[in-house]
């Protein structure tokens, strides 16, 4: 072993002039500016994250001091005591996000595959532009549309229809009122599907043509090409799009508040009204009096940030574990 080490050639002698040339390049003002920008950007970004968390922690400390850690899962609401049912909001956030993600995966990935693989270009090009346009629609517009158009449509047509489907009806018992967890999930899906479609489509278009050709050469049908070559090849991009979409769905405030029904109770059905962290924050923050009330609302914001971070990190760990087991 030692002999092997000894056989390693000694480091090359520095070539004269190279170090000087590198050094000179380094000392150029442009390079220095770029380095400063790089470091400055990284520092500012880090500082913003630290400042954000610090503000939330200090802002909510009064509430945590008053209610203790049980604030994180409490289901008790008392406006007189400035106490909010955080647990109820967490459940509502997770349910609406799940509904939106299921729709986003099914509709979004299918649309992306259709646009990138199957659609004739006459259809694909304008449709892609339309999807990008919808992705840019502000959430208040989607919310208003949900309140004025989707709510009556859901209470009169969609929800009664869902109640007639066997097995699935279990999710949809109770009165069809319009404002509900389901409607909130659908409104969220309308907002995140374009993101999923746009990013997944780019990822699918970027899959090497050789992969498709290989699948086709083995006798794969168009659908099999998509299933066996395109979607696996684009998986990282699709997953990234879903992560982004999930973040937006969890944190959405105003559009959800307009259609969810704002009932502070654990929903027994997807048709029941509920509340999410986002909707509770927007309904209460503007009106929260300084002191314990505001601190309690800031605590909701902190919980929302923590949950979003947890779900994101958890999702990525899960994906990484799956990727590793798939490689094995």
């Amino acid at each position, binding site marked *: 072993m030692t002999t092997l080490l000894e056989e390693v050639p000694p480091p090359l002698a520095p070539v004269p002039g190279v170090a000087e040339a590198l050094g000179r390049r380094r000392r150029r003002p442009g390079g220095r500016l770029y380095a400063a920008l790089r470091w400055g950007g990284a520092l500012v970004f880090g500082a913003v994250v630290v400042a954000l968390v610090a503000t939330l922690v200090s802002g909510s400390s009064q509430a945590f001091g008053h209610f203790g850690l049980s604030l994180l899962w409490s289901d008790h609401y008392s406006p007189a005591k400035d106490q909010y049912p955080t647990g109820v909001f967490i459940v509502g956030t997770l349910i609406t996000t799940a509904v939106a993600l299921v729709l986003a995966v099914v509709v979004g990935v299918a649309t992306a595959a259709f646009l990138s693989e199957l659609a004739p270009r006459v259809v694909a090009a304008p449709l892609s532009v339309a999807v990008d346009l919808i992705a840019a629609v502000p959430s208040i517009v989607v919310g208003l549309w949900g309140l004025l158009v989707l709510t009556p449509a859901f209470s009169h047509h969609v929800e009664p229809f869902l109640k007639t489907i066997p097995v699935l009806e279990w999710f949809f018992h109770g009165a069809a009122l319009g404002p509900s967890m389901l409607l909130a999930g659908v409104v969220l899906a309308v907002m995140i599907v374009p993101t999923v479609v746009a990013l997944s489509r780019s990822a699918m278009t970027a899959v090497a043509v050789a992969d498709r050709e290989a699948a086709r050469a083995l006798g794969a049908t168009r659908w099999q090409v998509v299933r066996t070559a395109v979607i696996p090849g684009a998986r990282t991009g699709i997953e990234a799009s879903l992560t982004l979409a999930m973040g937006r769905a969890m944190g959405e405030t105003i559009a959800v508040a307009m259609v969810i029904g704002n009932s502070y109770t654990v929903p027994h059905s997807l048709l029941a009204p509920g509340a999410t962290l986002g909707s509770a924050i927007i309904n209460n923050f*503007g009106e929260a009096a300084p002191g314990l009330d505001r601190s309690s609302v800031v605590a909701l914001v902190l919980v929302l940030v923590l949950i979003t971070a947890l779900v994101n990190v958890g999702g990525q760990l899960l994906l990484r574990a799956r990727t590793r087991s798939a490689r094995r």
Partner: protein
Amino acid sequence: MVHHSEDGDRVRGSSRPGGRGLWLPLVAVGAAAVLAAACSSTPTAAKLKPKDTTTTSTTAPAPTTTTTAAASPSTTAAKSSAAPATTTTVKAAAHSTTAATSCSTSGGTLSATCDTQSTSATLTGAGANSIQPFFSRVFYYFNQADHGVNVNYSPAGSSVGVTDIEQDTVAFGDSEIPIKTPASGTGGNILQVPVDLGGVALSYNVPGLSGGLKLNGPVLAGIFLGKITKWDDAQIAALNPGVNLPGSTIYPVHRADSSGPGYDLDQYLIDTAGSTWTGSAAGTTASTKWPITNVGVGQQLNTGVATYIQQTQGSIGYVEYAYSVQAGFTNAALLNTAGDYVTPSQTSIAAAGAEASGLSATNFNIVNGAGAGTYPLANFSWTLLYQKQANAAQGVVLGKLVDWVTTTGQNQAKALGYSPLPANVVALAHSTLLQLENSAGKPLFSS
């Protein structure tokens, strides 16, 4: 071989962008068509907007027709609720005009020393959502009468109005509930002026029940606590002999945000429903936050509640009376202290206002007042402004504006379903405005 296949790929790959390039013009044409459609539809939408030739920044919709007035404030209300950014409006400084201007504003009762006055100003306010239809109309007419003054009012809610004036980010705030006295903020002592008299309607949408529904405190409490769930419940039937009540389910709707109407109804239920209400999570102190949030549906602002009532058969909810008038709702008659069932109307709400003796920012509650024809859910809306106006020119304009609102402007209140202020309340507003002073402590108004 390998090289060859790569070449093939490249050819195929390059055909794609080329193909897309061909379609770009088509996309552009499509986008242009969409744009053209949007533009051609704009004039139709613009017809609903105020015809505002003299001003650039006022948001007050011109109430040219009743339908316009009904449509515009609801859109504004929904928008502002959605964008919290509008609540952080910055106090606009009055643009001082160099030319000497006339002090007289048609209507109004205040007279000021002319040397500091400027009639050209932009005033920014924020606060109660319930008063928005009145404010948007009255500010528009004030602008018509006194061309220099534009008012931007953000109807984000009473508590926002209180916070904004306390932090001195607006020229005036407005709240359905006065601030606890002594009221003060970063700009010193805050004056509270009653500016309008409104009521809270319990509106319902029950097919087969066209009107004449009578309700009292205990039954209303039962409905909002989820204990009374059918329209033909025995307790409702007992109050409504001879009325054909349907057997459908009751869907109560409440405000998801803090609200003046919610405070009034909470106060009425505390006064009249006894332990049914006070023994629940509601407690014994009235709150702007609706206390029972696990029953029925919560919607944002008067607009949201009104939309839900319109859309949902079997629903009942509380909205500012002016909103229920604009929406054409059927309203329940409520039991008052004299033992009468009274529906909300300008007359019955005015009767409640007339009963207000010794009204002040501390003695503001007129819920469940005395008198036979009195509607029990009535309240004054309060405009909040600093006693010391650092910018005296703006202070004079502001004082004159509020004075005009409480006097001449009350005619506009009548047109919308609000009731005009009784004489003793107008006098209270006038005497409160006389306390306005400049930064040196010199009164802005003489009489």
